[in-house]
């Protein structure tokens, strides 16, 4: 039996098949087919099948688990192809989605972008005043109805919406997370009057305090709802036609999977990167490492997630098209830096990114019309990337174009025509930006990079980790065996997971029964969802958590809550909160006399899937022979030096390689600098150590 997983990214669709008997992994990368994503999925599955000497139906009928991550929802938002959506709000507050708490002008922008006031603006509204219908109803902060809902008013609005050519409706009333009855009744009427409409209720998709973020979440869900549901059911149908007997599992932003029927459409957003973090956590566990910093370098963005004590954290907020959403989403920080980042001279300074040549036209060396020098061009000039092995040889690079782009735009204006120094400079500037993001991200989450091992994946991660890793303070770097399809690999490992949430700000002391009821209700919902996903009771686990703060202080901190809440349980929550607060913010930083306020409550209902033992690599036999030797840049000497280039797939367990060296894996290149050493472990992962040297020496 196989676990099959497909992750659709912006440029490539990655496929991974794991043979459950021996843990053997087969991978494939095919171009993403933007016009019809399914085509790319089947192209990948067909190729995997052929690699395994199977027909596609034979492979699919032998699949015990088919996991899928898709960018469909982000694509729809960026391309504006979602449904024409109407929104219902509480009377007096119809402008909430346009005011965007004012932050909408700069949400998701870097400091430098925010400094350019004139150039900042809110996104073109996905719904504007003409699409927003105010409803006479009001609920207070306790959930008490102050102005009852009038069915006739809703019916009249529904008819108006039906006549006006809308396709979807989102409903967000004030305090619906406390009392969802008005939204629920509105939903009933809408579904009755508008049976073909996708209807999204805010208390269903984001049952937490904060009307702007809850409205935005409901609006996006309505906007992509029909599209995602349609896509997933078509895909599941096509897969079934070709022999898949199992339910299709869809990766969610929370780092879990759910069936297509259970998938809340907007929860598929950024699910690929989430799966990458899950994969990193899974590898870390296999290797016995509690603390890992997961780094992913793609074409345009550099992503960082912190896994501490084996667990990742969740972000409070997700920014999508400058709207702020409340989704239970894995906390991933990012900056605009990657292989496609463009280098330029700014009044005598060398600047790299955040502008990216992306995949189209791509770096100059792609020969697709890009003329500006990028980070990938610098890597080619420095001799790290083999022009005939890029992306496993599927794309032939043109080193002459890389050279001339670097020479013309960077070397001549700033380096006296020295293209090598210019390329090394570009690389060092972008690597130091990545190292700075890693340090900042780790610090903000209350950790010290020196206690972490770094994991680097994505097309360009293994090429740059040798410099940003040590510079950020990590002493060991691990390049996963399947680094270029890491998210698809992570998806295959992903448990079924439902993140249930509830908001009710309460200042301690609180009766234990009140809290226990919150949790028991969520436990019951979670159990039902897991049962619907065919998870047996034995494989179910329930993780309760609370988000709390000291009154009068703004930082909320999430801590685990016990399985049953009695007075002692509340005491435990308070103590855990206090400890975690001091760990994060420093001893004595909590205004303890002001009291603890519990704000949000949640249960992560997890359905453990069986994890198969990973495939073990044959030991390295005989002496290591490089595939070839060529000139590559050594930063210590500031010159090209004779460097061995190894074929990664030929290396056995225990193979040890000293830098300087280049190890080519299918789809990516690992660079070792002069003072580093690499060791291939039993599972094919590359461990890089050494070079605790001063950062000023760390050029490559």
């Amino acid at each position: 039996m196989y676990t099959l997983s497909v992750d659709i990214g912006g440029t490539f669709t990655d496929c991974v098949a794991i043979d459950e008997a021996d843990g053997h992994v087969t991978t494939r990368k095919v171009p993403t087919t933007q016009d019809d994503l399914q085509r790319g999925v089947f192209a990948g599955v067909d190729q995997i099948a052929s690699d395994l000497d199977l027909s596609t139906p034979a492979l699919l009928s032998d699949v015990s688990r088919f996991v899928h991550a898709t960018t469909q929802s982000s694509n729809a938002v960026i391309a504006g192809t979602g449904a024409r959506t109407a929104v219902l709000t509480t009377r007096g507050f119809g402008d909430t989605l346009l005011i965007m708490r004012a932050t909408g002008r700069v949400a998701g922008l870097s400091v430098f972008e925010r400094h350019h006031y004139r150039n900042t603006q809110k996104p073109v509204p996905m719904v504007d005043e003409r699409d927003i219908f105010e409803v006479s109803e009001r609920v207070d902060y306790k959930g008490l109805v102050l102005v009852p809902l009038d069915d006739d008013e809703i019916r009249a609005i529904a008819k108006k919406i039906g006549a006006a050519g809308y396709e979807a409706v989102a409903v967000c009333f004030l305090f619906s997370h406390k009392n969802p009855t008005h939204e629920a009744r509105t939903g009933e009427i809408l579904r009755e009057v508008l049976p073909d409409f996708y209807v999204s209720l805010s208390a269903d998709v984001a049952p937490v305090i904060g009307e702007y973020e809850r409205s935005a979440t409901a609006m996006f869900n309505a906007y992509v709802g029909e599209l995602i549901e349609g896509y997933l059911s078509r895909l599941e149908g096509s897969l079934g036609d070709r022999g898949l007997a199992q339910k299709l599992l869809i990766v969610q932003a929370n780092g879990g999977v759910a069936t297509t029927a259970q998938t809340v459409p907007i929860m598929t957003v950024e699910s690929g990167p989430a799966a990458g973090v899950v994969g990193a956590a899974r590898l870390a566990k296999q290797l016995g490492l509690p603390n890992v910093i997961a780094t992913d370098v793609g074409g345009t963005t550099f992503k960082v997630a912190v896994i501490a004590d084996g667990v990742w954290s969740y972000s409070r907020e997700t920014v999508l098209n400058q709207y702020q959403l409340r989704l239970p989403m894995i906390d991933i920080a990012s900056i605009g830096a990657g292989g496609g980042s463009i280098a330029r001279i700014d009044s005598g300074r060398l600047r790299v990114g955040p502008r990216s040549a992306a995949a189209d036209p791509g770096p100059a060396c792609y020969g697709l019309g890009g003329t500006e020098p990028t980070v990938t061009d610098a890597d080619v000039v420095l001799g790290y990337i083999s022009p005939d092995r890029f992306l496993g040889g599927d794309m032939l690079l043109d080193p002459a174009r890389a050279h001339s782009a670097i020479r013309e735009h960077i070397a001549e204006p700033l380096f006296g025509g020295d293209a090598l120094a210019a390329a090394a400079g570009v690389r060092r500037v972008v690597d130091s930006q990545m190292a700075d993001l890693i340090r900042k991200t780790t610090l903000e989450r209350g950790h010290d990079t020196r206690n972490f091992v770094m994991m680097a994946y994505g097309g360009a991660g293994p090429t740059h980790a040798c410099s940003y890793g040590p510079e950020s303070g990590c002493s060991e770097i691990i390049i996963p065996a399947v680094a270029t399809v890491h998210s698809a690999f992570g998806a295959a490992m992903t448990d079924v997971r439902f993140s249930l949430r509830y908001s009710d700000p309460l200042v301690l002391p609180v009766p234990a029964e009140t809290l226990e009821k919150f949790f028991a209700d969520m436990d019951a919902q979670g159990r039902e969802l897991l049962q619907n996903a065919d998870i047996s009771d034995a494989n179910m686990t329930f993780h309760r958590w609370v988000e709390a703060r000291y009154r009068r202080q703004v930082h909320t901190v999430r801590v685990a809550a016990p399985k049953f809440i009695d007075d002692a349980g509340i005491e435990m929550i308070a103590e855990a909160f206090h400890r975690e607060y001091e760990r994060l913010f420093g001893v004595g930083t909590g205004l303890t006399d002001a009291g603890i306020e519990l704000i949000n409550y949640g249960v992560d209902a997890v359905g453990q899937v069986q994890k198969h033992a990973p495939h073990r690599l044959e030991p390295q036999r005989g002496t290591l022979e490089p595939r070839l030797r060529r000139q590559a840049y050594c930063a210590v000497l500031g010159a090209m030096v004779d460097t061995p280039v190894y074929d990664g797939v030929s290396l056995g367990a225990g193979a040890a390689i000293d830098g300087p060296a280049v190890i080519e894996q299918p789809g990516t290149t690992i660079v070792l600098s002069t003072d580093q050493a690499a060791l291939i472990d039993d599972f094919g992962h590359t461990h890089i150590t050494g070079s605790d040297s001063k950062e000023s020496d760390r050029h490559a």
Partner: protein
Amino acid sequence: MPDSPSPVLDPVSFEVLNHRLLCIAEEMGILYMRCSGSNVLITGNDAASAIMDAQGALVAVGPYIVTQGNVLPLIVQATIDSATRHGGFEDGDIFICNDPYLGAIHAPDFATVAPIFHNGELVAWVGASGHQLDTGGMDPGGFSVKAVDIHQEGLRMPPIKLVERGEVRGDILDWIINQVRDPLVGLDVKGQIACLMAGRERIDELIGHWGVETFKEAMARSVAFAADKLGARLDDLPDGKWREVQYIDHDGHESRIYQIVCTLTKRGQHMTFDFTGTSANARGLINCTYSGLQAAVLSAVYINLCWDIPWNRGVRDCLDIISEEGTVNNCAYPAPCAMATISGVIVTIDAAWRCLSQMLLASETYRDEAMAVWSGTSLAPIFAGTSQHGFPFAATEMSHFGGGGGARTYADGVDTAGIVFNTTPNMPNIEDQESEYPVLYLYRRHLRDSGGPGRFRGGRSGELAYTVYDAPNDDLVGLFAGTGAEMPNGIGIAGGMPGNAIRIGRFLGTDVPKRLANGTPLPEALEEINGRHEIMASKHERGPIDAGDVWHHCWQAGGGYGDPLLRDSGACARDVARGAVSREAAHDIYGIVLTDEGAVDVGSTDAQRQKIRQDRLAAAVAIDPGDAVVSFPGAGQLQFGDALLVDGDADSVACAQCGQRHCGTHDNLLDHLREVRSPLTAAGPVRGEDYDVGRFHLRQLCCANCGALVDVQVALEGAPRPFMQIGTP
């Protein structure tokens, strides 16, 4: 790199070090805010963290509130002066200071600075500053509307040694905590200590890795880069002289008007901001000291000219400030200044801003960077009492952080865009407000007709109303400190009109409690609220908010760009459909006639626009320019907005609309234009009419031939006129 002098820092190492310095400044800010946990600091970003060189020159500043970082160099200077007289300073020391006469903007901004030594040599300073919730003045919260001198505004610390050679002086900390009402202040000060200690550690590491000379060179290079780049940009911008006048209404004691006059002279790579003509300092809290004045000028320059230039000392090196002590934006001891940030400082930004946008407009290269003035003021609507949770509280209603953005030369201003000195604006959710405080909001929405009319409209502001709800002790009180009720400050450019003014009021004894009891729908607009309506002064002392009372206020929007008669009629129809502009304003100000279905009636619109131009010409009178000269000596070829065409070769300044030649480039254009004097409401409702005592009017300068608007100003009787002279005579 070995620890040896590096006279020349290579460009790559500089880039790496410079990025690291910015990151350290940001990380210092993160540590500070983590420890403090204060809402004002985190939600409002009302803090700063910075790295300075040995002389205190600003090198790298964290991405927080724009104005605060600029004060730290002054605090370093004051610390050096004070320590020189009192036994010096050593490695490991940290000094605290909040004296507005020694560098702080107002007393609530506590700042700390720490010298960094390397082998006994002073090599740098790190600093932090943040807005405190209380200073121990006559009123809690720091805004004492009735204060007449700074001593009533609470604690005023000269530079005091808070940490001595690495040891926190507990006696000093206790003394500070003793002076203030809020225990969060103690945590905040500890946060600054942690932040400075971490900054020092990071810089020590940096010096350890790179060597002290390289570190010093990187700092010097960072400052020089900003000065060089801004210098080169100024070289590209036209030389000239611009004067703007802005106003503050009400000083906390009486409804007096204070004027801020800013004259910008730009020659080559240098700018001079001259504030001669500014009113004498006020009796009440609206003043700012020199630190506020400098922060204001720098903020205007950063935003308008330095979008891609580091905000550091290099910018300051490109400009001079001329100002007489004893004026409202450079007040003399012991004048109070608690409200400096949201009166003296922000209104100074407005005046400097329009000088700069007029300069940008006159440049072919940079025309698109010009913006009308954003929401010209900020507010402090404070309510206090006992919450539904049984706790005493005092809270500032922060919705006004959604001020309207100024219009651009190619697009409307951003609706609810933010307040200019905050790079990351942040309005609270209604649900958070109501869960925390005993209030119930009736509405919060964009204010119709608030954006300054123009070819491109100013960004909209908002309005809100709330009532008491679930207040256990019925002891809710309200206090208000705002600016810009009698006149708007968000001024337009190139014929664009001003946005709205603020308005504060209350309805006493409404039927809201009855509606709540009966479950009847609540009022959703000002016009639907019954009860006795009172308009309240822009600064008022605390007064009770009783059950059934409804309080309301609105804040300022952005100014417009270009004559509103040039607005695309479809865009205007869309504004009406979206409720951004009323049908009346569309008709009267934009000259747009709509059918009942909301479509543009093209024929009637043309006629209405022609009629407005004719009405302007009929009402227009010759201008008495006083000392004001608008001229373009040596300006070459230039199109100024949609208003003027300047041709130096032909010695002609002409109307860009009808082509009529006004005059030669050396002549005073004001002698050849005409002006219409109208009430401020000619720019729309809520332009100060509820506060009008006949002092202000709208001054519309227009073409004598076709009536096209050239400039629209908010004019005070007897105040100097704005002007511009572009080119060098």
